[in-house]
């Protein structure tokens, strides 16, 4: 659906993007991950038709966006980090205006509005002036304006920034809902968020594609093995370490002393899923009481830092 081929963008002599290539299919949610200045925003702006590439092309269903920008723009919805809103307008008046700017007739916008209001979870706020809405609702209006014309590609730059935990949960639902029948690109610096919403993650570093894949694939590329878990048991730390080190398929064991007396814990890298399948069974058979088996919370952050370090 969207092919990004050898995308390069210079600001003066500085290369913000260098030979970036990737593709996106319909129905996919792509997570764009990168440190500040990595080239995320430049990539999104080029895809949204706000910037032209210095070199390379972006094809949207086979059409080059620089050769036919108007027809492509009509099929793209864009939400920047700060939602662009006319704050003196009501939600409905604003969405009608944007829909018509995107090429829809007044009749088409009117017919589409209920669906968009529901999708962006704006029910009850239709006639409220945008300037009086909370930050979370303004983000939703931002999303609604990005999808009012039923675009094939939706680009969301940091959609959850500034939202409280409850709003974040709501926004995740909205983003997942967007992927039905269209492609969605989400950029975020909150890495755990990317892993929760995206089907595939693109890691950009210094204007280049550092890695691409699912969270598990990225972990594998970062040399982390297929599985990393934290195992907490009732028992002695030294005995747990010894047992794990001797178990076939366990790659590394990093002791992680528990704060509670009588408990032991370790971060364990496993060779593959089959080792994970048998881990709890074997630990119990060895006489330990399994208290907790969990994935490390900072997994994605570590993978990301590892990948960006590799490229640098």
């Amino acid at each position, binding site marked *: 659906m969207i092919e990004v081929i050898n995308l390069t963008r210079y600001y003066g002599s500085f290369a913000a993007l260098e030979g970036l290539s990737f593709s996106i299919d319909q129905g996919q949610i792509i997570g764009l991950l990168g440190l500040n200045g990595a080239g995320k925003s430049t990539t999104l702006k080029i895809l949204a038709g706000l910037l032209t590439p210095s070199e390379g092309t972006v094809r949207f269903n086979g059409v080059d966006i620089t050769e036919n*920008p*108007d027809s492509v723009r009509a099929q793209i919805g*864009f939400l920047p980090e*700060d939602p662009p809103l*006319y704050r003196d307008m009501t939600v409905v008046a604003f969405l009608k205006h944007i829909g018509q700017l995107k090429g829809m007739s007044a009749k088409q916008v009117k017919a589409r509005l209920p669906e968009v209001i529901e999708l962006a979870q704006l029910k009850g706020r239709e006639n409220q002036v945008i300037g009086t809405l909370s930050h979370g609702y303004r983000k939703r209006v931002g999303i609604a304006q990005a999808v009012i014309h039923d675009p094939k590609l939706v680009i969301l730059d940091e959609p959850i920034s500034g939202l409280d935990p409850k709003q974040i949960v709501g926004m995740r639902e909205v983003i997942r809902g967007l992927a039905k029948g269209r492609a969605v690109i989400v950029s975020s610096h909150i890495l755990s968020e990317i892993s929760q919403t995206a089907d595939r993650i693109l890691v950009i570093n210094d204007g280049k594609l550092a890695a691409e894949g699912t969270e598990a694939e990225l972990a594998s590329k970062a040399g982390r093995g297929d599985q990393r878990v934290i195992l907490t048991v009732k028992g002695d730390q030294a005995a747990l370490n010894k047992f794990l080190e001797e178990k076939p398929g366990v790659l590394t064991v990093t002791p992680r002393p528990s704060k509670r007396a009588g408990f032991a814990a370790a971060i364990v890298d496993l060779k593959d899923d089959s080792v994970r399948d048998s881990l709890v069974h074997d630990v119990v058979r060895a006489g330990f009481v399994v208290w907790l088996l969990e994935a490390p919370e900072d997994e994605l952050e570590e993978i990301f830092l590892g990948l960006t370090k590799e490229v640098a």
Partner: protein
Amino acid sequence: MRNALLIARRDLSAYLNGYVGYVIFFLILLGEGLFFNFFALGNGAQYSHDVLQGFFELAFGFTIAAGIFLTMFSITTEFGQRTDVLLTTSPVRDHEIIAGKYIAAMSMITLLTVLSIYMPALIFVNGKVSLSHIGVGYVGVLCVGSVAVSIGIFGSSLFRSDAMWISALTSLLAGLIAAFLIFAFILLWWIAQKTDPPFAPILEYAALFDQQYQPFMEGRLRSTGLVFYGSLSFVFLTLATRMLSMRRWS
């Protein structure tokens, strides 16, 4: 044209839903009314024709001021509030954006002009003027308004800042630049008086006041004036479009 009208409708609603448009209208009508009372009507007896001419002379300055005040924020605010993204990611051409801004501001100028009609109407209390004189005078006022609006939009297109407070400053700067350009075009008339041919007639033709505006003030409709003001508006609107295109791809 459809997109230009959509943008114009949006800008018009911003003028009328906020307080800026009303403040500008209030100040311009107040100033124009006071000046009309003190200077155009005066104390002594005057011919109705002269009073009307005096009114259109005042309207020249006040319409220019209104044109600048209405447009100095027009594009800088879009950048400041980052709503320019809504326009640049839509299938809207740069000339449609500028045309929309122009139509909205000209609608406001037209409304302002209509609201000032009580002043020429007052002449009928003690005198008599022809309706065609009033009509032609107002055509001149709208022509000058068109130039002021075009130069104001051009001034506003010169700056781009994503920060709201900087965009407020750049709006003021845009207004000052527009005022300076208009003042320079008026000043050409004075320079023409101090210059010898062949430059004098050229400068006189290019000046915003006198040769081009005088006939309108006197109730004489001349195509040269319409062409002059139309061309000047077109040039500055084209320059504003170019500025917008440059910023879009920079």
